[in-house]
C-alpha cells in the first residue's frame, strides 16, 4: 500500500515550544500535502508542494508554521510556537500530480501539546 513515511509517530511538546515533523513522500511523487486531523475527525488542509515549491497554504500555516520540501531530503512541517489547540494528528500525503489520482497517506504524527 502506501510508502509515505512520517516521523516521529508521537510528539509531545510544551506550549510555546517548536514542534517539527517529517515526511518522505512515495518515490516518484512530486506533490505533497499536509493535513491536520483533530479529535473530532475533522481534516484541515494545511499546505501542499510540487517539488520544492509551495502550491497553496492556509493563513494559519503561513503565520505559524514553517514548511519545506527540499530536494533529496525529507519534507518537514514545524510549528514555531505550539499551542494547546495544535494537538492533533498531522498527516502527510503524496501523489504523482498527473490529474485526479489516488492520494497516499503516511501513518501520521500525533502531536500532544501540554
Amino acid at each position, binding site marked *: *500500500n*502506501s510508502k509515505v513515511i512520517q516521523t516521529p509517530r508521537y510528539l509531545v511538546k510544551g506550549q510555546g515550544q517548536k514542534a517539527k515533523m517529517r515526511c518522505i513522500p512515495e518515490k516518484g511523487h512530486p506533490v505533497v*500535502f499536509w*493535513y491536520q*486531523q483533530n479529535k*473530532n*475527525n*475533522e*481534516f484541515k*488542509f494545511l499546505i*501542499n508542494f510540487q517539488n520544492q515549491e509551495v*502550491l*497553496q497554504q492556509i493563513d494559519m500555516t503561513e503565520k505559524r508554521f514553517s514548511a519545506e520540501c527540499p530536494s533529496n531530503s525529507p519534507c518537514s512541517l514545524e510549528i514555531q510556537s505550539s499551542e494547546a489547540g495544535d494537538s492533533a*494528528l498531522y*498527516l502527510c*500525503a503524496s*501523489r504523482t500530480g498527473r490529474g*485526479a*489520482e*489516488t*492520494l*497516499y*497517506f*503516511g*501513518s*501520521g504524527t*500525533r502531536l500532544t501539546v501540554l
Partner: protein
Amino acid sequence: GQQVQQSPASLVLQEGENAELQCNFSSTATQLQWFYQSPGGSLVSLLSNPSGTKHTGRLTSTTVTKERRSSLHISSSQTTDSGTYLCAIDNNYAQGLTFGLGTRVSVFP
C-alpha cells in the same frame, strides 16, 4: 455546510454480518476515495472510485456521480475490520481531498 456527509456515524456488527456505509457530497467530484483509519490513526486507501462499481476483497464501492453519492459495502465482516471508514472527494485539485467525518465500525465476535 459539510461538503461530504457520511452515514451512519457509527455501526456495530457481529462478525459475519454485512454492512453498507454511505457518502453524500455536495459538489462535483473528480475523484472519490474510501479510506480505513485504524484506532492508532494510520490512514489506508481502500478504493479510488469516482464513478461506477469497484471491488477489492470483501469491499465493494458504488458511486453514482450525477447523484453525488457513494456507498461502501463490507461483506462478511471480521473483527479486524473495526475502525473508522472515511470518504473523501477531490473537488479542489490544489487542496487535494475534502473528507467526511467518517463511520466508526465496531465488529464483535
